[in-house]
Every structure is written in structure tokens, then in C-alpha cells.
């Protein structure tokens, strides 16, 4: 059973919901932090690192010294990464996607594709569960590929340790890392806050979820900020809304200290515990979230 937690807009509470499920569920779980740009779960769940691996998943083009330039070479690159400087084509490493179009047109074989460090895969054993985290080299591309790798690693851990639930904490946005995080999941939990931006962006993210035909439910976080948008959420996601977490100043205070918010004493922590318990019991009408076996 693979459950992905997504939201579209950043800062709505994906990591809070994911950390609560990871701690609260009595099922065996493995947690994947798929926010490879800015992974955060390891801050809440420090643990012993079991595996650290450098990943070379992307490539970039290098044009050798022998190259004298060719007419129209700049147009061959559809990413605008090739510029002719002093009569010699030069590759902008930051823009190069590693597609190899320039290598294919080079008649003398002076252009080559070279692998580059995309990021790192880090597997750690926290108190109760293994945590898989893919960490992007700052500013690089290839987040989608990294997320795929992290999910693969988590599946292997799940198989070896007979873990039946994989939780995937997706990044903000709807681009390649989100596509990679959502694809192939059995269930998706969308986290929304009562603001216009959050609702609009959740709807955009939902299009990706629906594209992969993943069944989903919605959790309303920070309830109490705006009655107007809470009504709109209730109207728009009727039948899909499975939990409401009240706005509680305790949550950022706990996050400031690195404590998972479910461990708090306030009303948000209480609501999070109720939410997890309800998931545990599989009382949600739409679908029993936990209980199915892997694969």
C-alpha cells in the first residue's frame, strides 16, 4: 500500500500530516521524503544512517577542444544551453538537460555526454521506522528521477522487512517530482488550508492525481483562518473531506523545536491523533486506507 501526501501549495502541512501518520499508525511503515530539494523529515526523525549513496542519474554535454563550431549548433539545443563564445560552442551546465541532441549532430565525436551528481540517497533507521530520503544537489535538475529512486529503495526495504505501508511525503508544486511521487500510488491524501491559493493549487495537483487514477481524500488543515474558504472547501470536496485540523499556534512552536506536532498537547495535536486513529481503524467510508498488502 503506497500512500502519497500532496498539496500543490507549499507550507500547508504535508510534512505534518506525513509525520503524524508515520508516528501514529501501528502498521509497519516506511517513510519516503520525496521533497528532494528541501527534505525535512530527518529533522523531525533523526536516526542512524544505514545507507548513503551518491546518485548519478542525469548527464550533461561536454564539447571537446577539437570542436571548431558548426552552423546552427545553437538551434539544435532546445534548452538554449549552447552558446558560441569566440567561435567555439560552449555548454551552459546549468541549462543542459543532458538530452544528447548536440552529441548526435556532432560529426567528429567531440561532444560527449558525461554523468553528473544528481543527489544522494540516504536511508536511516529512526526510532520506529526506516526513513528514505533523496537529497538533490542544490540547483541541479533531475528531481523526478531522484524521487523514483527513493521510491524504488523504499519498496525494496518494504519487501525485505515485510512492511506493508509506504508513506510518501510529496514536494510542493505539480511538476516532475510530484508526478514521480504520485505515479503508482494506491492512495493520495491532499492537504489544504482555507486560503484561495491553497484551494486553487490543490485543484491543480489533483489533476495530476486524477491523471494517474489514484483515489484520494482531502484533509483540511489550519481550520479557523477563514470561514469563507472553509465553506468553499466543504462544497468543492464534498465526500472527500475526511479530517479537519484546527489552526493552532502550538504547531509552529513544536516545529521550531523539531518535535513532530502529533506529540503536542493542543487541539491540533488532538485532531491529528483522532485522524490517525480513524485511518488506523479504516473507518473512512471512501476506502480503507491501511490494511492492504504491498504489490
Amino acid at each position, binding site marked *: 500500500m503506497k500512500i502519497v501526501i500532496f498539496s*500543490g*501549495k*507549499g*507550507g*500547508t502541512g504535508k510534512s505534518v500530516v506525513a509525520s503524524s501518520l508515520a508516528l501514529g499508525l501501528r502498521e509497519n511503515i516506511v517513510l519516503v521524503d520525496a*521533497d*528532494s*530539494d*528541501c527534505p*525535512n523529515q530527518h*529533522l*523531525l526523525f533523526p536516526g542512524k544512517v544505514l545507507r548513503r549513496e551518491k546518485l548519478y542519474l542525469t548527464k550533461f554535454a561536454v564539447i571537446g577542444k577539437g570542436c571548431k563550431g558548426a552552423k546552427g549548433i545553437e538551434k*539544435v539545443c*532546445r*534548452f*538554449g544551453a549552447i552558446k558560441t563564445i569566440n567561435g567555439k560552442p560552449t555548454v551552459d551546465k*546549468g541549462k543542459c*538537460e*543532458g*538530452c*544528447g*541532441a548536440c552529441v*548526435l549532430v556532432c560529426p567528429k565525436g567531440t561532444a560527449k*555526454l558525461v554523468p553528473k551528481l544528481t543527489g544522494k540517497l540516504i536511508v536511516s533507521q529512526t526510532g520506529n521506522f526506516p526513513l528514505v530520503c533523496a537529497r*538533490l544537489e*542544490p*540547483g*541541479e*535538475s533531475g*528531481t*523526478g528521477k531522484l524521487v523514483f529512486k527513493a521510491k524504488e529503495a523504499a519498496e525494496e526495504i518494504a519487501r525485505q522487512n515485510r512492511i506493508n505501508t509506504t508513506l510518501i511525503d510529496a*514536494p*510542493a*508544486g*505539480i*511538476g*516532475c517530482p*510530484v*508526478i514521480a511521487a504520485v505515479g503508482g500510488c494506491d492512495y493520495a491524501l491532499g492537504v489544504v488550508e*482555507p*486560503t*484561495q*491559493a491553497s484551494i*486553487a*493549487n490543490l485543484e*491543480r*495537483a489533483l*489533476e*495530476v492525481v486524477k*491523471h494517474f487514477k489514484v483515489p484520494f481524500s482531502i484533509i483540511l488543515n489550519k481550520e479557523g*483562518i*477563514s470561514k*469563507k474558504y472553509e465553506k468553499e472547501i466543504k462544497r468543492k470536496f464534498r465526500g472527500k473531506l475526511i479530517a479537519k485540523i484546527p489552526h493552532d*499556534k502550538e504547531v*509552529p*512552536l513544536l*516545529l*521550531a*523545536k*523539531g518535535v513532530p506536532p502529533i506529540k503536542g498537547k493542543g487541539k491540533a495535536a488532538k485532531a491529528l491523533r483522532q485522524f490517525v486513529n480513524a485511518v488506523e481503524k479504516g473507518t473512512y467510508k471512501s476506502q480503507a486506507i491501511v490494511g492492504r498488502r504491498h504489490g
Partner: protein
Amino acid sequence: MKIAVTGGKGGTGKTVIAVNLAVCLAKLGKKVAYLDCDADCPSSHLIVGASLQKKEKVSSFFPIIDKNKCRKCGMCVQNCEFNALYQLKGKPPELVQSLCSGCGACMIACPYGAIKEGKKTIGWTFSFRKYGVHFFSGKLKPSEPLTEKIVDAVKKRGMQGKYDIIIVDTAAGAHCQVVSALEGCDKAFAVTEPTLFGRHDLKVISKVLEKMKIQYEIILNRSTISKTRVKSVLQIPYDRKMIECYVLAVPIVEKYPNHPISRKIAALAKRLLK
């Protein structure tokens, strides 16, 4: 002058601060362009209560395979670095749209000229005016992977006019899309909050900014929720008025120009012009 507003973590207040800053600059009589470079989830129009106008298509290449000319040699499949093409034995290759980067390598690789240039829409750019600021925004078509191309299109469109100041609002994170947005900026503000997540993500984005040699300063939002040692040029306390303005979709500098937060943002805008 191009000024980026970024920060790493999502939901720290990048867009709200960027919009308020842009409105302040416009009030000071400057010609201001605002580029919303979060093409995954654009929200500047929602924060100023405007609708997206003047839609323009952004398109990208995709291969059209002429099954009559194709000799099933598999060269295109071999040369696709993104695994977007696959081939069953004895059949012409098939394309997985969501993996295709639109690089065109398959078209070059095909020895029989069986691949033709196709164009698909991958998103749109928009522009509108509000509070004296010229806004530009982009939207990725959901389930398409090429966000950075939309970001480039937004930047290209926004930079056609003549402006005194261009504010570039980036997405959360620190990957290619954010890098595309930051490219060419003279200065950046990194917006963060005093939580562990905020501090961690700030470190990540500062690495990117240092790599790109962009000078940056830190803005600390919700500064009152916890103590921090982060050195910032502007501290914005946790305030119900900020949330109220967010929900009403009006910048705080418009709604409450004399509120302490508005004054702080206005002071920052004045400092920028020096």
C-alpha cells in the same frame, strides 16, 4: 534592476512579501513588473484579487512518428535519454508523453526521417495590471513535466517592456525551475520562518544563491513564533492582520498602509531604490 524573492521552504510568505514590495515600489512612482515564476502553482493573482488575462500558449516539441516510413530500427529509443520512447518487438516505437522533455534527439537520431516535428501545448503565460504593477504569470498544464520552460516564457514576456524594477517571485524548492527563475537577477531576498524546516531550507537555497553569485538578504517572516539567530534585514511578526489581508486578497500595504508591517515593507522598498 531585477530582484528575486525566494526561500526554499513553501508557505513562508514569498509571494505575499513580493507582492507587497512590488506595490510599495509602484507607489513610490516606479515602473514595476512582477514575474510570478511559480508556474506549478501560481498564486500572485489570487493574493491581489485579480484574474489571469491575456493568455498566450507555450508549446514544446514532441515527436510524430510516421509509421509508414519507420523501419523499426530502434535508434530513437536508444538515443532518448529520458526513456520516453519504448518499442515492442517488430512494432514502431511508442511515446510516453509525460516523460518527453521535447529535446528532439529522436528526430536527429532517426536515419529514415520518420520522425516529424510536432508541437504540443505545455502551459500558458498571462499578464494583468493591479495596484500600478504589471503582473506576468505562467501556468503549467497539469501532468506535463517541463515547468522551467514556462518559467523561461514568463521571464521572456515580462522583460519585453521597459521597467525600473522587476520583481521575480520563485517557487518553493531549489531545483531547476527555481534556478531558471533566479538566473539573471541582481539581488535576492530569501524569505524564511523561525522553524527547523525554515532554517534548513534556507541553507539549501543560500547554497544555490552563492553558487549563482547572487547577493542575497534574509527576510524573517512570523518572526515572533520562536527565537532564532538568523540575521535578517526585515522581521515580520506573526500577525492576524496579515492573515486577514491574505484571505481578503488585498496587499496589507493597500489595506492598512499605516500598520507597522506595512511601514517596514515600505522602508525596505525605499532602501532598495537608494
